[in-house]
């Protein structure tokens, strides 16, 4: 990316602000302040904070303060406009380090020497420069590899609920993810927005235990940090990821957790500004805003690196039609949905069979990539499991005894599918062959004639074997 040709005006400093409104401050009697410009705010106690211009008027500006406005006073606060948007210093040296949401080190180490400074807002990738993702990532988790295959360069979120083991599932993906037949490890960029310290520690310990910590860059703005800094955290993280992927040609896995907290911070700022609310008071531009994050994934021509995104979000009240999961699902290339019912029954990973989806699966599986029967057996599992749900609903009305023999087969299949195929230990790394064979094993509970989605050749080769 060329260094932005942003005009480099001298910084302009002003004493005193006119209004404080939640996380926003109003500054008047100023000149030539640009939209999205970086602002340094010197507090009465001498400490410094960062902010961004979100509305530029003649002689006045509205500034969003990332670290919150507590302790600011009107006459004693100084603001300095930097004449350029927030840029992140990027370098390979940042691997293995921990930063705050604005990219400042918080692990006690020195400030890394910057190779370059990149605008955190990024630039849209030219659609003609994108490469279509097709390389299968083996996560070792049957529910994902077999039925919702992840490919390199995909954005595949985990839709979860409070109390569900999304962190455990994600950590397992991070530990086990690999490209079969390739000896390249992933660099990991981890951004935490508003999650608890325990969660951050859980991931860090996990990275340590697997010995990948020197390949991880962490950006943490935890639950006790001011909410507005969550708005910039994913942007700094993705800028880092873009640098590693498209400049240093590395394969990067980005974990963003928790996107619901990000959206809430967005709503908070929007409400304070008095914008016209849309669904559930989220701003009307939530879709565009989320897209400006999720679309920063993929593969581009002229560089061999890639960005694979696994955002995590908790669905308020487990409601998948809530604006946050809903709009996310419209942008990302599928979703891994965790289901409370499976979790309560002790099934790990509790990945819901039917609502989970990988849109890029079709191009990442099959001959030469996984196995020839992959698409068909996956489709068969989906169809049969959908039938299981119907049969269970029927059984709860008329009782299991009244079911037809065929329906009983489906019940048995459903049970086996959940216990043998879905379930696995959190350190169990299944190869794709194991996963597909398991799929055939559970499908073989059903009579042959019931298998409409697989070919006769496949049936004779795999059925009941």
């Amino acid at each position, binding site marked *: *990316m060329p260094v932005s040709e942003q005009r480099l005006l001298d910084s302009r400093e002003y004493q005193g602000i006119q209004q404080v409104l939640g996380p926003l401050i109003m500054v008047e009697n100023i000149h030539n*302040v640009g939209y999205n410009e970086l602002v340094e705010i010197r507090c009465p106690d001498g400490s410094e904070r960062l902010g961004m211009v979100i509305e*530029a008027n003649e002689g006045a500006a509205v500034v969003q303060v990332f670290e919150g406005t507590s302790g600011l006073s009107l006459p004693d606060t100084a603001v300095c406009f930097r004449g350029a948007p927030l840029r992140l210093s990027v370098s390979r040296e940042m691997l293995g380090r921990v930063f705050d949401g604005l990219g400042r080190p918080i692990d006690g180490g020195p400030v890394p020497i910057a190779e370059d400074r990149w605008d955190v807002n990024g630039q849209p*990738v030219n659609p003609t420069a994108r490469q279509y993702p097709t390389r299968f990532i083996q996560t070792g988790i049957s529910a994902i590899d077999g039925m919702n295959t992840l490919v390199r360069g995909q954005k595949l979120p985990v839709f979860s609920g409070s109390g569900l083991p999304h962190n455990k599932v994600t950590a397992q993906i991070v530990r086990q993810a690999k490209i079969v037949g390739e000896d390249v490890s992933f660099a990991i960029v981890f951004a935490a927005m508003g999650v608890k310290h325990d969660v951050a520690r859980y991931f860090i310990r996990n990275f340590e235990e697997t010995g990948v910590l020197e390949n991880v860059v962490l950006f943490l703005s935890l639950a006790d940090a001011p909410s507005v800094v969550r708005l910039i955290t994913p942007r700094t993280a993705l800028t880092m990821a873009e640098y590693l992927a*498209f400049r240093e040609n590395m394969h990067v896995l980005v974990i963003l957790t928790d996107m619901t907290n990000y959206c809430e911070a967005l709503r908070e700022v929007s409400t304070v500004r008095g*914008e016209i609310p849309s669904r559930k008071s989220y701003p009307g531009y939530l879709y565009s805003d989320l897209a400006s994050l999720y679309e920063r994934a993929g593969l581009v021509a002229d560089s061999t690196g890639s960005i694979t995104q696994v955002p995590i979000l908790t669905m308020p009240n487990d409601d998948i039609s809530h604006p946050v999961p809903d709009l996310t699902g419209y942008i990302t290339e599928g979703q891994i949905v965790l289901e409370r019912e499976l979790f309560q029954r002790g099934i790990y990973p509790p990945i819901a069979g039917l609502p989970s989806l990988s849109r890029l699966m079709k191009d990442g599986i099959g001959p030469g990539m996984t196995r020839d029967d992959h698409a068909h057996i996956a489709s068969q599992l*989906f169809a049969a499991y959908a039938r299981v749900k119907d049969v269970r609903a029927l059984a709860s*009305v008329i009782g299991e005894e009244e079911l037809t023999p065929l329906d009983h087969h489906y019940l048995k299949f459903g049970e086996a599918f959940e216990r043998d195929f879905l379930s696995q230990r959190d350190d169990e790394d299944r190869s794709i062959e194991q996963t597909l064979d398991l799929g055939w094993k559970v499908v073989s509970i059903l009579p042959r004639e019931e298998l409409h989605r697989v070919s006769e050749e496949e049936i004779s080769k795999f059925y009941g074997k």
Partner: protein
Amino acid sequence: MYGVIGQVSRVLGPVVHARGVKNARMLELVEVGEHRLIGEIMRLSGDNIIIQVYEDTTGVAPGAPVYGSGMPLSVELGPGLIGSIYDGVQRPLEEIRKLTGQFIPRGVQAASLQRDVAWPFSPCVEAGERVSPGQVIGTVPETARILHRILVPPGVSGTVRSVVKEGTYPVESVVCVVRTPAGDEKLTLIQRWPVRRARPIASRMHSTIPLITGQRVIDTLFPIPKGGTVAVPGGFGTGKTMVEHQVAKWSDADVVVYIGCGERGNEMTDVLNDFPKLVDPRTNRPLMERTVLIANTSNMPVAAREASIYTGITIAEYYRDQGYHVAVMADSTSRWAEALRELSGRMEEMPAEEGFPAYLATRLAEFYERAGLVETLSGETGSVTIVGAVSPPGGDFSEPVTQHTKRFIRAFWALDRDLANARHYPAISWLDSYSEYTEDLSGWWKQNGDPEWGDLRNEILELLQREARLQQVVKLVGADVLPDSQRLILEVCTLFKNTFLQQSAFDRIDMYATVQKQVKMLRIIVTFYRLGMKAIQEGATLIKLRRLKVIPDIARMKFRISNDEIEKLDAIQERLEREMRRLGEIYASF
């Protein structure tokens, strides 16, 4: 032509206010700031204007100059459109990539139609001839299948003063001079047209010819005509984009304009990878030779997303005026409506439902009314068909965009979450979808498909309705208690859903079904029902019917029998009738 007309006074994301403006026109194209970001004037009030800017406004400061152009936002129309990929304001993305690499920086400019390419032009008017708007003055073979007709632009009529000889010319060279009452008009291979205004036509016509898409559930159950309008609503993951892609690939339109409006970047890449490789079954030419792509993905500027729909439809109208049948895929109109909402909010307009502006319905109506089968100014027949995807939040069809869209379209392909979850694709619900065009089109189908088409179709639709009611009973008491005559309905509908309605987009044989294949498959399944019902009334059991030897062949006919071996379907039909007859004979002997 760009002079300073005012100064920026306020910047609010993509909405920029300016003051001290003189001589500005509503919807005039302007450029803002030193990066010369392009925008459009959305409101005039005294010497203040409000501009919507098509690029990221980071760094734009009050006091920056605003340059006026004196003309509205327009697109360039001429040879070279086909096979190109543009952003929402018709900037050529391939060219931009050559200039700036992987990313799209701000303020980058490139000509929409390449200036240095010379096109072979053959004139078809002579000096002294009278010409009127829409008349063809010459032709350019744009691709192997599209003969680009160079038209006299609307508003120009007079006598040809001179015309160039047959030869190759770049797009900007003058090929014809027309003497008009207002002076000489120099015509090049390019003309410009403001995107927000529909191009003029002679008259609208009633369409009775279907747009054949090769998708069975669409063509047979919910058909649309050339010049029709249809909405495809569905929650995320229900396959809207797949439906749009399938129609773009296999429909019998001459030209396809695919508008990726606020959707995923990778989907456009998929189209860019796929279309040049796929071959049109009718002309044996790559699909890219009839396709124009507009890609304004979700992370590209929101104001340009608002414009992308208009850019696309204007290009479509231009090919319609040349006498072609054009299909416009708009994926997704909800993202366009959201862009409208975002801009309206930033302009501090009073919101109506769910924050959408009150003029949402009017804008939707204007857009869909640009579809239609028409007689062009030169007396040819052309059409624009619109297939608009709708992405209702939470999959709830009662939201404003779906509801308003329903008022202006005449066919509705509702995508169903449960079908998608069971991986039944295309997940077009047979209970919620409709087509008001069926009556108009049944004549064509009777003539070119099956004389009994209307009856067969009605019969299967009625069975599907009855099946839905029966399923409610089955949910309460199980299927076992139903008599065989009712279980036959369940059986036939399952067969119909699995073999006819489900259609694989990836299977070489199944991805596209000709009219003949569709009507024959339909007849086989209806025959199974008719004769099966008769057999059951005569005393046969459902088990016997299920065990007919022909059943597995019926179940797999869509994968086994390709479009050029239709006679095999006749053989299946005969076998079915024969086996049923034999079954009848057994029971008749009792």
